[in-house]
């Protein structure tokens, strides 16, 4: 009996912790899918509405149709009044995220002009409307997305080439001062990257790389090269040296051995290192804020979008776009997670 109680208490605790993590994210997702009108609702929906239920009535005095919506079960809210279906369709698209043809609305609503009754309407919401509108409202979003991808690409290129060489040297050659290199890597990692970004702004202007993605990639590579060196070192150490020696015995050159034996074995390690590079470059807004001017990255654009009033649902859509790749790459890296932690 005691055991059962303890067991169920454990599950209650686990469920509580999981919901503390997931509930805010669920709300964010729902807000990113909600229309302009829904944004004003209280309490906010936990689960997104897939359809919109409305009522329409013919207003004799004003000679127009009135569209109503139930914000809560009791509270009917007049939304819009018009007898022009073109305008009504535009309103539906803009404020309710309903993408429909004026003819459809006319078909549905026009009959009540004569009968004077109230009709219930039900339309499918365009779930991804905010995701489209995000790119329209924040005009630089498309470029920012491309910039983020570029910054990621350059960071991967720099970290893998420079860090991979260090990892190989540490694993395969007898050089002096390996401990010093390890210590230096730790010190570099401890330094706040933003402190380096301040003088870097001036240096990058001098190097002609201010406001470029390559310039950002150089900063992102600072922690990443060390990390890549560390990962590739352990990979190179793990490869059976005899395989390579066998390759030499059969007359392969050093380069050929590297190409056809060593590199295929190292690819998983390099993949892991690139994912780290991806996460660092993709998630950063702080360095980008200091070192770019017009060329924003997506994370920076999301950071700045906070000031735009009445656009939090579009910003939320943008945040979800930012989150998804970061999540995917973090899950792919799950096994290494302890090591980037911090």
């Amino acid at each position, binding site marked *: 009996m005691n055991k059962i109680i303890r067991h169920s208490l454990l599950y209650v605790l686990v469920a509580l*912790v999981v919901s503390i993590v997931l509930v805010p994210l669920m*709300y*964010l997702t729902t*807000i990113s899918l909600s229309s302009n009108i829904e944004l004003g609702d*209280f309490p906010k929906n936990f689960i997104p509405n897939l359809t919109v239920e409305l009522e329409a009535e013919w207003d004799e005095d004003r000679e127009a149709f009135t569209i109503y919506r139930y914000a809560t079960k009791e509270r009917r809210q007049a939304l819009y009044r018009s007898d022009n279906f073109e305008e009504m369709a535009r309103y539906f698209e803009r404020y309710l995220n309903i993408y429909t043809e004026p003819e459809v609305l006319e078909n549905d609503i026009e009959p009540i002009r004569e009968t004077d009754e109230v009709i219930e309407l039900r339309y499918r919401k365009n779930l991804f409307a905010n995701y489209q509108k995000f790119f329209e409202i924040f005009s630089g979003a498309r470029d920012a997305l491309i910039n983020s991808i570029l910054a990621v690409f350059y960071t991967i290129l720099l970290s893998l080439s420079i860090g991979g060489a260090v990892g190989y040297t540490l694993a395969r050659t007898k050089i002096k001062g390996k401990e010093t290199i390890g210590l230096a890597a730790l010190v570099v990692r401890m330094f706040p990257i933003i402190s380096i970004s301040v003088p870097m702004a001036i240096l990058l202007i001098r190097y002609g790389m201010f406001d470029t993605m390559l310039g950002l990639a150089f900063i992102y590579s600072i922690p990443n090269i060390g990390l890549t060196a560390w990962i590739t070192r352990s990979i190179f150490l793990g490869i059976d040296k005899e395989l390579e020696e066998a390759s030499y015995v059969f007359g392969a050159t050093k380069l050929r051995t590297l190409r056809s034996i060593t590199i295929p074995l190292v690819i998983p390690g390099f993949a892991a290192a690139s994912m780290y590079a991806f996460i660092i470059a993709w*998630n950063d807004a702080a360095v980008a804020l200091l070192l770019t001017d017009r060329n924003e990255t997506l*994370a920076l654009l999301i*950071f700045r979008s906070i000031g735009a009033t009445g656009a939090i649902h579009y910003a939320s859509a943008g945040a*979800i776009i930012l*989150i998804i790749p970061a999540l995917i790459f973090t899950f792919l890296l799950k096994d290494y997670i302890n090591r980037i932690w911090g």
Partner: protein
Amino acid sequence: MSKRKTVIHSIKRIVKSPYMLLLPALLFYLLFWLLPVVMSIFQSFTTVDGTPTLQNFINMFNESRFMRALINTLVFAVVSLTLQFFLAILLALLINKKFKGSRLFLFFMIIPMALPQAAVGILWNTGLTEAGWLNSLFHVTGLQTVLESLGVLDGRTLWTNVTGTRAVMTIVLIDTWTVLPSVMIIILAGLQNFNRELSEAAQVFGASRGRAVKDIVIPIIKPSIVTALLLRLIAGLQVWLISVMIFGYGRVPYLLERVVYYMSVVARTDANYRMAVSYSVFTLFVILTVAFLFVRLTSGKTEWRKADE
């Protein structure tokens, strides 16, 4: 002739030596790390035309938000670290059992850590407003009525409308939400490495459960945790982004918030740049000092334990 040959020979040897593979990394860190670090320290101690001065730091100390920024940064780092550490240990000890769905549980726990900070800022911005999801959640679950009858809340709260220490605590809670699951995973991993029999043996010999945790569990999982906590502490001292997304610049100052403020919010003048550099060098100093103290404190304890044995 032979002299020339040896020169060529030694050049060949240098080019072929393994150190050459380290050269790009060396150049990279000289140019993109050491140079800016040295440059910022140099700039913080000089005027625009290069004469040495302490005026930059005097200006910084006299800046109206300096003290607040320093205190907020330290309070944030210490409180968030302590809170996260103890909550994580507690949760990890409670959950340290194999249960159905524990893999799925760990899967969910990784999510907050993966989120970009800018996205976390948006997430909590949608939550802390008057009609935000936090108030909605309270309303729907009936927590609102409970808290109102207890006198804790009075109607729908605008959570961003706090100042001073309470604003710092708000960011501590957000940070804890983001980081706690991963601290817990690290501690769980440490616990799973350690042999359960040890703790049972201690209890057989009459140690209480609390004592077994303190004297056996903690020392064994310590090495992995200390590094993790050090990195957390350093990260904590660099707080600013989420706070700015929620409170804006200036209202709840932090050291790095000041750096960013003088770099990208106000006009780009020499005076503002010197202010940013001074703040950034000062932050560096604070981080190194705190990290040093932390290492001394944690390693000191281990030695004391050994002596005790």
